[in-house]
């Protein structure tokens, strides 16, 4: 198979390239592939929270990896999204410590308020909901993550206030 060597700077914006390069620099020179998780996260954030096949192919080109190796990573880890998500991705933990602290009420409240369930996006594209496994904040159960932020000790009222505070 002939590989066309592209000018890598054309694959992403200079800023994205610089961010990916920061990850590449952390690993041995012959292990660019180690930067794939960081690169996918950067590219995903830049694309409204999800990855297209084209973006994954570009990451593959940038890191000189076979595309399939990038797809394997993107499909294996739960934080990569292969379908559009809301501007605010609401990740609610329902594992044991949260469950026994009534995470089901938080889920119900969100469902009613937003009119969506897990795996769905609101019509205006502002919110999506995702059920997640233990996020390691059980002392603040029930909890959820929106974007990069953890929110703990939730009640329906607190959830309302949090959502109102989002852009």
């Amino acid at each position, binding site marked *: 198979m002939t590989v066309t060597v592209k000018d890598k700077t054309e694959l992403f914006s200079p800023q994205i390239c610089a961010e990916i390069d920061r990850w590449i620099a952390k690993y041995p020179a012959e292990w660019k592939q180690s930067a794939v*998780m960081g690169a996918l996260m950067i590219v995903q954030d830049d694309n409204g929270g999800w990855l297209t096949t084209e973006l994954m192919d570009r990451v593959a080109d940038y890191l000189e990896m076979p595309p399939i190796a990038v797809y394997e*990573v993107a499909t294996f*880890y739960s*934080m990569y999204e292969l379908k559009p998500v809301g501007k605010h991705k609401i990740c609610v933990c329902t594992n044991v410590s949260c469950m026994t*602290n009534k995470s089901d009420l938080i889920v119900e409240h969100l469902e009613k308020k937003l009119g969506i369930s897990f795996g769905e996006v609101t019509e205006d594209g502002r919110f999506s909901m995702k059920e997640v*496994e233990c996020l390691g904040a*059980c002392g603040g159960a029930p909890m959820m993550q929106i974007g*990069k932020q*953890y929110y703990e000790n939730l009640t329906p009222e607190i959830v309302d206030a949090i959502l109102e505070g989002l852009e």
Partner: protein
Amino acid sequence: MVNEVCLRTLDLERPWLMEQYQSRGGYEVLKQVLSEKRAPEDIIEEVKKSGLRGRGGAGFPTGLKWSFISRNAPGQKYVVCNSDEGEPGTFKDRDILRYNPHQLIEGMILAGYAIGATRGYNYIRGEFWEPYERFEQALQEAREAGFLGENLLGSGFDFELHTHLGGGAYICGEETALLESIEGKKGQPRYKPPFPAHFGLYGRPTIINNTESLASIPMILEKGGEWFADIGVKNSGGSKLFSISGNINNPGVFEIPMGTPFSELLEMAGGMRDGRKIKAVIPGGSSAPVIPGEQMMDLNMDYDSIAGAGSMLGSGAVIVLDDTNCMVKTLERMSYFYHEESCGQCTPCREGTGWLYRVVHRIESGQGRQEDLDLLDDVADKISGKTICALGDAAALPVQGMLRHYRDEFQYHIDHKRCMVGAG
């Protein structure tokens, strides 16, 4: 005797800053080790003496693990920190990363010095953004102060340290899956042997330790292995961070001596909420078999005491459940977790975890059959010990524990098609 090791700076206003860490003697032991050119073998011996056992859950003696590395073998070696905290119920390493990142950095440098490694990675779970930023900020400070980089403090020893962010996969807490993940692959565990001490990251000798284990190292070297060992009890040296959650008044992370009675820990955590009766405790993360509350009240928080009751201390994640909890529903959620998180590599785990979940789910939904209880035992048995890594066992153990102690609840669900617990 609380907060003596990893959380010893917690009372400071902004303990994550270098200047605050140094106000409590932070980095002094590193300076001493480097200036005196302390013998690496001596450091490993001190860690052995401390009785420190892997705080991620497996409880393997840390000093022994370090001694497996051929220190003088040529070529690159690595120190890897496992901050992929994901065992349900565990939230202690998050606090080390957020509140005492410098002690972890100092511990990793010392580990590198002891095993002859000049590079380290801290694998932080991808969801931990705030801890990641705190740790990165601390790395920056440490670099500027000359604690990281080349020729540390003029000693001739080089050490560079970076973070790697996970992507949301529980399995990456398994050490060889974690290495695969740093290499930019799916996090699927490797066959062992070879062990990471011989063939680790990028095929090079590597030690992997949990965040809390590595963050304990500076105090062990400062005050001596014996000092650390004496905090705890036989076979369980030191203090330990316990993450306690569930139906209690004051959940949180408590650093207390190994061997502290569970009843005291529960009291520190404010006791049972709403004065309810304690029903069950999962003492070491969700993989640890459940222990009935009454029995737990007589146990101590150390490896031997918890093992003696048929469970394990694991990561020190204590989930306390009161009498409103249905054990079938609890197991259903736990089984779903292992099914969701199985990496799919080994057939017994990939198929078995789904099977366990579906059977518990149908019992919980009132569709259970009489033969299901034996079926659960049988499936759990057929996963145990038949997989590359311990996730299979971790899925089987809670099933076996629940059936051992709460078989009557499962039977009731099958007979009456509903729950015997009022709130269930």
